[in-house]
């Protein structure tokens, strides 16, 4: 397939394993009950809701299945998934509706 080389893969597995543990251990193990600066905590609260959308948006606008050509159905499926997730708070309802739209479209017109 796309050929991730073995050295890269294991470097990532080990590095990410250690890094993730360090993140999890940082406070409970080392910082203890000392207070964190409020401005830092305030920014950290928005890490996941910023980084993940920033990762996904280009993948939606220039989707891999079309070779990077913008595609209306992929955009609609993505927006539906986000909207259903937001309104139902249900990951599976969200995932299901997006996938259903895409699969339905591909089997009808694909």
């Amino acid at each position, binding site marked *: 397939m796309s050929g991730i080389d073995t050295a890269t893969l294991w470097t990532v597995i080990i590095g*990410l394993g250690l890094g993730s543990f360090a993140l999890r251990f940082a406070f409970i193990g080392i910082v203890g009950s000392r207070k964190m600066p409020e401005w830092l905590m305030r920014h950290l609260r928005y890490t996941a809701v910023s980084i993940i959308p*920033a990762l996904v948006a*280009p993948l939606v606008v220039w989707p891999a299945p079309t070779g990077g050509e913008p595609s209306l159905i992929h955009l609609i499926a993505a927006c539906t998934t986000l909207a259903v997730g937001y309104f139902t708070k249900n990951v599976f309802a969200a995932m299901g509706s997006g996938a259903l739209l895409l699969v339905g479209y591909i089997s009808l017109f694909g």
Partner: protein
Amino acid sequence: MAISTTSAAFWKGLRDGAPFVLVTGPFGLLFGVLAGEAGLDVIEAFAFSMAIYAGSAQFTALQLMQEGAPIFIVLASALAVNLRVAMYSASLTPYLGSAPLWQRALAAYVTVDQAYALSIVQFEDEPDMTVQQRLAYFFATNALVMPGWMAATICGALIGDQVPESWGLDFVLPLAFLAMIGPMLRTPAHLAACFTAIAVSLPASVLPFNLGLFVAGVIGMMAGAQTEVWLNRKLAGAQP
């Protein structure tokens, strides 16, 4: 019913955590399948889940490695996605901080979304729990989810290379991420962070080495934090 013994705490944790197997299982399966598609064998996929045990970070790393991003970018991005576990760690510290170091190290390894979410509610509801009872509860919330995640990864990796290309699985990952993000958008500040990050990420994607991800991520975080400050100020101003 108040928890009075360590084993009662364990069983309550096990019961509370059980439904989450149904949530994390399919994502573990999906990770295994996508890892298989990306050319990882079963051992490699399993090592990934075992070493990291954090779905969104694993998906991020896999995606970026497939794009051929430099190792530094892969690590930094996946860790950035996982920064929230550091916040969980900070928030659990007052409750578990007095346990022996090796127990805290074990607890750190299994600090994941659902264990944190269940435990923090439990600890706040029953402030009289001892540290041993809290730890028993915390570990028990993982007792089914973790083996489930590992088993699902292995199953996924085993069937992964048999899934035909035509299924268009390369768009499943963006959808999975979006499905995870939707429920996380609880306040206007979350929305501001999310949509700012999206708006910046598109033009920023011309930057080399996937640096656009960081630029967009950091600007999104600043937008979220700033919105929170404004909202708090407005709230304070509205009071008589």
